[in-house]
């Protein structure tokens, strides 16, 4: 192969893919900028310094010291990455009935209402929230181990409240429900991980595409491209029946369309019918205002 041909091959190749290469170059620059921005962001200190550093309050004493420490470590790691506060409170106290209302000053005798108030007040009074002490980003799980009133409430705030739908709240609570009676540590670790997973999706941690798509889409696209370009279009016959007819059309000398007979057939028509359903998957699940006036979301599961 002569040098001229090789030169022409290279020229054609780069000319053909020029926009692709330029696009990749631009994306590389944007990726580099995004990488720098990301490194800077993860090293920025949390804005809200008024909240306590403690995240795990095991008043019910269902966790060992080692388990508590492990949870604190995991929460700290998620908080740094997702920039949300994650708080866990276990307690063992009646929150239902007139006696509990009088004794602890709840505003109602209802279990669910009081669990919600307990969680909201704990959050608001401690000024939790990664970015600010009022309506800041984060969530709190309070788990009541009082006999006959066992159950938990998840209260969300700020970005977490905006992101969590009823389904997301249920997902977190079910993750806790699965293990709370056999292994509380595992149940609370599931709480932290489920919140991290849902908020990670919000931040695009799993990315715009799934890992499978990153490998499969280019292969499929390349195959389609190859097949499309391999397709050869042979020349078509562009003559018609009248191409060689003088004047472009025949001379009609005679024509007839005479009715001969007819017949009719009949059949019975069969009929059928069908219906449909709905879903609940948008953010802002369980939205309400706490006694301190802060906006919260959330939900409870009683066992």
């Amino acid at each position: 192969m002569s040098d001229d041909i090789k030169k022409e091959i290279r020229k054609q190749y780069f000319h053909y893919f020029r926009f692709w290469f330029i696009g990749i170059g631009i994306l590389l620059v944007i990726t580099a900028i995004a990488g720098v921005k990301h490194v800077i962001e993860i090293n920025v200190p949390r804005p809200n310094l008024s909240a306590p550093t403690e995240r795990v309050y095991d008043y019910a004493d269902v966790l060992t010291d080692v388990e508590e420490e492990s949870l604190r470590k995991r929460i700290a790691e998620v908080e740094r990455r997702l920039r949300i506060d994650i708080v866990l409170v276990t307690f063992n106290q009646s929150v239902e009935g007139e006696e509990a209302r009088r004794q602890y000053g709840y505003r109602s005798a209802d279990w669910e209402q009081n669990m919600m108030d307990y969680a909201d007040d704990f959050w608001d009074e401690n000024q939790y929230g990664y970015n600010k002490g009022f309506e800041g980003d984060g969530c709190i799980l309070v788990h009541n181990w009082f006999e006959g009133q066992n159950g938990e409430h998840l209260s969300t705030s700020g970005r977490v409240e905006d992101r969590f739908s009823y389904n997301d709240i249920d997902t977190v609570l079910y993750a806790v429900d699965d293990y709370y009676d056999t292994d509380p540590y595992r149940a609370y670790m599931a709480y932290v991980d489920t919140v991290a997973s849902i908020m990670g999706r919000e931040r695009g941690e799993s990315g715009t595409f799934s890992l499978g798509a990153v490998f499969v889409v280019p292969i499929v696209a390349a195959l389609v491209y190859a097949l499309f370009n391999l397709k050869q279009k042979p020349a078509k016959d562009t003559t018609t029946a009248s191409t060689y007819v003088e004047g472009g059309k025949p001379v009609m000398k005679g024509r007839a369309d005479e009715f001969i007979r007819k017949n009719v057939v009949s059949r019975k028509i069969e009929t059928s019918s069908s219906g449909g359903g709905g879903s609940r998957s948008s953010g802002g699940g369980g939205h309400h205002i706490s006694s301190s006036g802060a906006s919260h979301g959330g939900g409870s599961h009683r066992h």
Partner: protein
Amino acid sequence: MIFVCKNCGGNVVYSPEKHSMFCPYCDSVKSDERRDLSGGEISVCPNCGGEIPVEEHTSATQCPYCDNYMIFNERVEGAYAPKKIIPFQMGKEACKNSLREKFKKFTFAPTDFLSEARLDSMQGHYVPFWFYSYDTSCRYEGEGTKVRSWRSGNMQYTETSYYRVYRDMDIDFQNIPVDASVQMPDDVMDLIAPFHYGQMESFKPEFMSGFYGEKYNMTSDIVEFRAKNHMQEDAHKLLKDSISGYATVSPGRREVHVKSSEAEYGLIPLWKYNYQYNGKAYPFYVNGQTGKIVGIPPISKKKVWGYTGTLWGCLTIIMILLQLISVWML
């Protein structure tokens, strides 16, 4: 015969762009003077004495040594005198551009497929054709059905009406072209049609100067079956097209009666580009009048792998980068 310039003595050729005889040496138009070649071997150039590759049916060619175009009198006169000719309407440059335009998006063609050097090897040929004309009377008689359907309550009714269908028409077929060259593939010659007969002229040898040519290789009676098949197919289709409004039409009885017929000999202009790739020939034919192209380019396997692989690589890189950007920027 050879056409020389009265002004400079150069070889005058027919210019498709100028629609006239043209001297490429002194740019004179209509300065041609015919010089008949006197006796001697036709395989020897009368101008330079060089040996010319002349095959059995060659009627016009170019001397490979002095580049002069010559036409062999005895192969364009007498029994071999064409009655009509469609002169070249597209010059070589227009033809090259036509090929480039058609195949520019064919990514996997070899790199030099549309190179200037390769395309420059293209040659203009006058291909011998027989033109058949048939004055016919065509009839059809058969049965057609019309279907009507309606609903009443929970019953569906379908009514089928039967009709006697009759058509009688005269069809005057003019100039159905059939090539009379053994070298030219029949399927390609069928596809290269149609031609605009309005530009057809009475034969003059001047039109052949500057091109290659052949006399007919096959007589009219040998190739007429192709024209008759064509005529029969078209007649049946025209009969069928005249019948409308029916859900079904039976094959019925169809007759095509030829009242009179005629065959005329003529020449059709064709550009031929013979591309060689990996030891195999890939011929391309371009209608020298309409520019219609017949031929399929070869595929370079290296290009298929290289380009497809590059596209795959680019897409994978782009998706990975977008993934990183979406994770880091949000």
